[in-house]
């Protein structure tokens, strides 16, 4: 399969994961590009009997973590609208039948959630993205990140504690 076919088949899914990790379009595009470059460079490491999408996903997370290790992490407010973009968070207007108050409340929670995600260190955020956003179990997350299951569990615990602390005012109760 040539690289163009791989881009057609897998780049959008990679972009979704990249956006969840980086929180904005420009960095998500850069991360996907860097991931494909790494995949091309390390093509000999790919086991053709395994799922290419899964391998690409692993590479993407490791590129993300390696890119931010040891350097001062940019504290970007994630998932926020840039000039000329509509906010993906506020675009989540609630479904039919919800009262205006409920819609405002939900949008506020989403805005806070997005900001709280951006405040997490990369390793904790990666755990949240895999387990809480993608719905993977600890073992799958550990396989993707290359960490022991206990490490994933511990980092997830810390991440959730931080998120909880940041979200309590929005939810209006202890969580």
């Amino acid at each position: 399969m040539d690289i163009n076919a791989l881009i057609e088949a897998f780049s959008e899914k990679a972009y979704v994961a990249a956006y969840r990790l980086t929180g904005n379009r420009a960095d998500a595009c850069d991360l996907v590009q860097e991931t494909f470059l790494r995949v091309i460079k390390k093509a000999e490491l790919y086991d053709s009997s395994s799922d290419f999408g899964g391998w690409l996903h692993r590479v993407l997370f490791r590129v993300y973590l390696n890119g931010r290790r040891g350097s001062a992490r940019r504290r970007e407010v994630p998932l926020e609208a840039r000039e000329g973009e509509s906010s993906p968070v506020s675009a989540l207007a609630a479904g039919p039948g919800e009262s205006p108050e409920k819609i405002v409340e939900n949008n506020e929670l989403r805005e806070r959630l997005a900001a709280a995600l951006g405040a997490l260190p990369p390793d904790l955020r990666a755990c949240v993205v895999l387990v809480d956003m993608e719905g993977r179990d600890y073992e799958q997350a550990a396989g993707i990140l290359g960490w022991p299951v206990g490490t994933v569990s511990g980092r997830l615990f810390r991440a959730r504690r931080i998120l909880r602390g940041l979200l309590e005012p929005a939810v209006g109760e202890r969580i």
Partner: protein
Amino acid sequence: MICTLVENLLDLYLDGRLVAFQARLVERHLAACPDCATRLASLKKVRQELRDLLTPEPPVDFKAGLKAALLEAGERREVSDEDAYEGAEPVPSFTLAFSLVAFLLFASGSILGPGLPSQSCTDSLNSVCAGNGAVKGE
């Protein structure tokens, strides 16, 4: 106190990672404690919101840009590989450098003459160095 204990278990309970007796303990407590039940509902809500956070569509030129960037990177790498080949100069290997250092250390014993600990030169009269090279035992 039991609330604090259960509170710490709620995440694991939602993840399905509690052993049976722990899960039963949590469920019994939740049935009797409205505060903890509310907390569980809040946790579920936050998780649901996390899953529902939308990702915007990639930019319209995303795939085309990606293909172009990969193509450019591939060409750049080919050019730099050629440059590296053309301008390559022989680089001394680590083995060669190590051999050279070892040889110099060995040779220094002969060049510097007696006086090196490696040649057992001591102040003793029995030393090979005693009497400016006088024959040992005289």
